[in-house]
C-alpha cells in the first residue's frame, strides 16, 4: 500500500533525483547505461567467461566463419582468425584492454586535469592567461597526433599508449575545468560569498564546485569515447598494442591480411568498438540533455 500523502505541498526531488528522472525518461540513454553496465561486468569477468585463451592457436580451425554461417562451427561462436584464434574469446579479453584501459586513462587524466584546471581557474591575471595560451597550443594538436608524437618518442606498446592518450586528454580536462571555474568566479553569488568572508578554499569547494561538476561529467563522457577511439586507432596503426594482443583496434590491424577472404575478422572487432562508443555517447547525450535545464 502506498504511503498516504498527508500534506498538500508538492514534493521536490533533490538535484540528483531530478537529474535521474530526466535521464531515465530518455529510453535510449537508459539503454546506453545498461550497455555500459554490461561492459563493466565484462571488464571484470570477461576473461573468466571466455571459452579459450586469447592467444591459443588452433591449426584445425583456421578462418572459421561465425557460427550462424553454413561453414561455421558452434564451438567458435564468432569464428576464428588466420591463426585459428577464437574471436569470441579475443573480444572478451579485449574489453579489458580497450574499454578498461580507456577508463583508467580517463580517470588519471581527469585527476591531473582537475587539479591543474581548478588551480589555474582560481588564479587571475597574467598567470592564468599564460596557462590559457599554453593550453590552447596543446589543444590545437589533435589528440591522435599528440599520441603519435609520444609513441614516436617512447616506441609502440600498450603502456606507452596509456601515456600517449593520457597526455593527449589531460589538456582538454584542464581547459574545460579552467574555463568553467573561471566563468563561475565572475558571477555575483561568488562575490556574495566572498563578502561573507569565505576563504579561497571554501569558495572553491562549497560555492563554485557544485556548479562545475556537470561540466566535469560531460567532459568525462566525451573523453571516454575519444580515448576508446584513440586507443583503437593507435592499435590499428600498429603504434599501440602489438601483434598478439587482443586489443580491438589491433585485432582489426591483424585481420587486414585476411580481409578479402575473412571479412568477419575486422567486422566483429569493429562492431565491438562501435557498440562501446555508441553506448557511451548515448549516455553522454542523455546526461547532457538531462543537465541542460539545470545548467540554464
Amino acid at each position: 500500500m502506498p504511503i498516504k500523502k498527508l500534506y498538500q505541498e508538492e514534493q521536490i526531488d533533490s538535484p540528483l533525483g531530478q537529474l535521474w528522472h530526466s535521464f531515465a525518461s530518455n529510453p535510449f540513454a537508459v539503454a546506453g547505461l545498461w550497455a555500459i553496465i554490461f561492459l563493466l561486468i565484462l571488464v571484470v569477468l570477461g576473461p573468466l567467461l571466455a571459452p579459450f585463451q586469447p592467444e591459443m592457436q588452433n591449426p584445425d580451425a583456421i578462418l572459421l566463419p561465425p557460427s550462424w554461417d553454413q561453414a561455421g562451427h558452434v564451438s567458435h561462436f564468432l569464428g576464428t582468425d588466420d591463426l585459428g584464434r577464437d574471436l569470441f574469446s579475443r573480444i572478451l579479453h579485449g574489453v579489458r584492454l580497450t574499454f578498461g584501459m580507456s577508463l583508467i586513462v580517463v580517470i588519471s587524466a581527469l585527476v591531473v586535469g582537475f587539479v591543474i584546471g581548478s588551480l589555474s581557474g582560481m588564479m587571475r591575471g597574467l598567470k592564468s592567461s599564460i596557462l590559457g595560451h599554453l593550453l590552447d597550443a596543446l589543444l590545437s594538436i589533435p589528440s591522435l597526433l599528440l599520441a603519435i608524437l609520444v609513441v614516436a618518442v617512447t616506441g609502440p606498446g600498450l603502456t606507452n599508449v596509456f601515456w600517449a592518450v593520457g597526455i593527449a586528454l589531460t589538456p582538454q580536462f584542464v581547459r574545460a575545468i579552467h574555463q568553467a571555474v573561471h566563468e563561475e568566479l565572475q558571477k555575483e553569488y561568488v562575490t556574495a560569498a566572498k563578502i561573507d568572508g569565505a576563504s579561497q578554499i571554501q569558495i572553491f569547494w562549497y560555492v563554485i564546485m557544485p556548479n562545475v561538476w556537470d561540466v566535469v561529467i560531460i567532459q568525462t563522457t566525451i573523453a571516454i569515447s575519444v580515448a576508446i577511439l584513440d586507443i583503437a586507432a593507435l592499435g590499428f596503426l600498429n603504434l599501440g598494442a602489438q601483434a598478439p594482443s587482443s586489443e580491438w583496434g589491433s585485432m582489426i590491424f591483424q585481420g587486414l591480411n585476411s580481409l578479402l577472404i575473412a571479412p568477419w575478422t575486422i567486422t566483429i572487432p569493429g562492431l565491438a568498438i562501435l557498440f562501446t562508443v555508441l553506448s557511451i555517447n548515448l549516455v553522454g547525450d542523455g546526461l547532457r540533455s538531462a543537465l541542460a535545464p539545470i545548467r540554464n
Partner: protein
Amino acid sequence: MWRYFVRRINLFFVTSIVMISVIFFATGMFPVEKGYALSGIQFPTVEQQAQTVEDYNLEDNQLNQFIAYVTQRLSGNLGISVNSQQSVADELSAVLPASFELSLFAGCIAVFFGVPLGVIASLSASKTIQRSILAITLTGYSIPVFWLGLTLALWFGVHLEWLPISGQINLLYEIEPVTGFMLIDTLLSERPYAISAFKDALLHIILPAVTLAVLPFTVVIRITRQAMMTVMTQTYIRAAEARGLNTFRILIRHALPNALIPVLKAFGLMLGSFASYGILVEVIFSWPGVGLWLINGIYQRDYTVIQAGILSVSLLIIFLSIMIDLVHTTINPINRKELYAN
C-alpha cells in the same frame, strides 16, 4: 575590431611558439643523437657535423638551441628525410595539397548534405524523422573511422567493383603537378587523356572523401538542427511570417544565415579531430597526403619527417582555427556588440 584582430594575431604567435617548443622538447627526447634527429643526417661527415652544430647551436644552452631551432624551421630548413635523403620541405610541399584536396572535398560533402538534412530535422514535426536523423548522427559520431573506411572499401571497392580504393589517380595517367590538387591539375593538363584522367581522379576521391566526411557531416547536422530550432523561435521570424513571406523564403533568407554561424564555429572546434580522422583515412586509402607521409615516417623512424609532419599539421590547425574565430567574429553581429560593450 582592430584590437580584437591584433589580440588574435598575438594569440596565433604565442600558441605557435608553445607548439614549436613542445616539438623541440620531444625532439630532444627521441632515442637518437640530437644532431641526427634535427638534421636527418645519420652518418655526417666532419663538415656536415660542424654545420649541424652551428645551425642548431648545439653547444649552447637550451634556450639558444631553441631559438636556433625556431629560426631554422621557420626559414624553411626542415632537414633531410632519413629514408629518401630528400629535403623534407620539398616532400612536405608535395604532400600537403593532396591532403587539402581531400579535406576540402570532404568538407564540401558534409556541408552540402548536412545543412539541408539539419534543416529538415529541425522543421519536421514527425518523431520518426527526427529520431532517425539523430540516430544516424549519433552512430556517425561513434563509428571508428578506420573500420568504416575498410568496410566501405571492401564493399564498394572489392565486392561491387564500383570505385577504386587506393591512391589519388590511376598510375597510367601522367599528370604534371601545377597546383597539387589532382582534380584541377587533370583539367589543366594539355594531354589528350585529360578528361578521362579527371574522371578517374574524381572516382578515386569519392571513397576517402565520403569516409572522412562522416564526422563533419554528423556535426553539421546536429549543430544546424539545434541552431535552426533556436532561430525559428525568434521574433524576427514571426515578423517575417506576419509580412506574408512564404516559408521557403523565410528559411533561406532569414533563418539559415543566422543558423550557419554556429556551424562555422563548430567547424573550428572540430578541426583537431577532423585532422586525426584525415590521417587515418589517408592511411587506409593510401592517399598520398601528409597523414600517410607522417605515419610512414613513424614506421621508418624518420625523425625529421615526424617533426615536420606534426609541426605543419598543428600549425595549420592553429592558423585555421584562429581564422575561423576571426571570421566568426566579423560576421556575427552579436559577437561584435559584446566586443564593443567592453
